[in-house]
């Protein structure tokens, strides 16, 4: 499952991912059961495993990280075995528990649907850097006229608890503020978004309107 910034590779969008590393979520249970085989299979394809991590470097220096998803009730934790340890995020696990939040890719594998991408990026690790929040706001701005998309985002936001919604709103505002304050915007990996300030503001306005409708 393509997640993180790589989620932008999973659907049609003009929003650039900017970073080239790929995040792939796999079921925690699979990692626990087949961790060594996963590492060996990837090594056989030319991906070098970084010992002790869930990162792999491909033949052309493409980097990808594996992370786990599992039971949301278990909270954030490290899962897997010594052969392959992955970080399991509660937020992502909760969202991926609903199959409708993802879609099949024509080339195989799955990716987050655009609405899921927006909500995960906004809600996951509320204190995380601004890059993910800006990507989500830019997708919101880009697809804001699409009523079905907006309804889907609203539906997913409705499932987030009110305190997390307040975190999410504050983090989105902070991301736009950071972008405005620093013309050379230097949040790691997000420098290329400085020219998209207006679109990020539009995205924040749309998010605000959605949250108002939820009375959040």
């Amino acid at each position, binding site marked *: 499952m393509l997640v993180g910034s790589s989620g932008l590779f999973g659907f049609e969008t003009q929003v650039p991912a900017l970073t080239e590393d790929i995040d792939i979520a796999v079921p925690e249970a699979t990692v626990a059961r087949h961790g060594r085989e996963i590492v060996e299979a990837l090594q056989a394809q030319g991906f070098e495993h*970084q010992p002790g991590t869930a990162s792999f470097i491909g033949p052309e220096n493409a980097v990808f990280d594996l992370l786990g998803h599992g039971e949301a009730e278990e909270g*954030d934790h490290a899962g897997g075995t010594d052969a392959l340890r992955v970080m399991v995020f509660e937020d992502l696990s909760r969202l991926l528990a609903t199959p409708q939040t993802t879609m099949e890719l024509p080339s195989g594998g799955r990716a987050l649907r655009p609405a899921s991408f927006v909500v995960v990026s906004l809600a996951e690790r509320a204190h995380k850097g601004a890059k993910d929040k800006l990507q989500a706001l830019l997708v919101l701005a880009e697809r804001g006229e699409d009523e079905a998309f907006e309804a889907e985002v609203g539906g997913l936001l409705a499932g987030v608890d009110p305190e997390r919604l*307040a975190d999410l709103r504050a983090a989105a505002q902070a991301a736009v503020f950071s972008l*405005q304050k620093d013309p050379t915007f230097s949040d790691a990996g997000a420098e290329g978004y400085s020219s998209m300030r207006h679109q990020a503001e539009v995205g924040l306005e749309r998010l605000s309107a959605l949250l108002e409708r939820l009375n959040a």
Partner: protein
Amino acid sequence: MPDVRKFLTADERLKELQRDRKALRRERMIREVAGPVWHRMVRVVPLSFEGQGRLVARVLLASREDVIEALRPDAVFAVDTAMRLAHGAGFLAIQEVQAYLVGEEPLNRLATAGLISSDDYFDSIVVRPWPGPTRLLACLVDELPPSREVQGGYRVVTRERLGRELVGTVGPRADLFVLYEKVEGIETPGAPESRTASSPPDPPERRPRS
């Protein structure tokens, strides 16, 4: 060039996440202390004064009041200056002049009159935590933003825009935002003398004059 990227183990990522969560708990505490004002403030889409056009800084060679008076026909005053002109109180410690202008003609006129420096000053950071001369910070725009006229005939940004400029200048500062709400007479739910309307209307808006 050697690749200096550090790949994190799952345990290191978990520690990073726990640090994030700790920072989040602190933010939630600040939110709780700020009370309802925080929720109103975080609804504001920040507006960056300096990002609206080309920002030019000039050193004041005359009093702030004289410079503001000289700019009266041309400027829509913004940020702290707008709040001071409208209400006599501002939100920045340093009292400078922030204004939107169309074109450089007013700057040249004030420079010729000896009110401001002829040359641009290198430091145009709006909120600077270091000392320096008092400046005129002029944001040169194609079209002046919507404004309202306040006592003395000065044009200042609208009430709504001022709130956005405040958050866009100092970030989500509940103490300053509550001051803005108070001086603007914005009704806040639960406030002692709350009226039925959520906010008094802006005075008649003036369309941009260039």
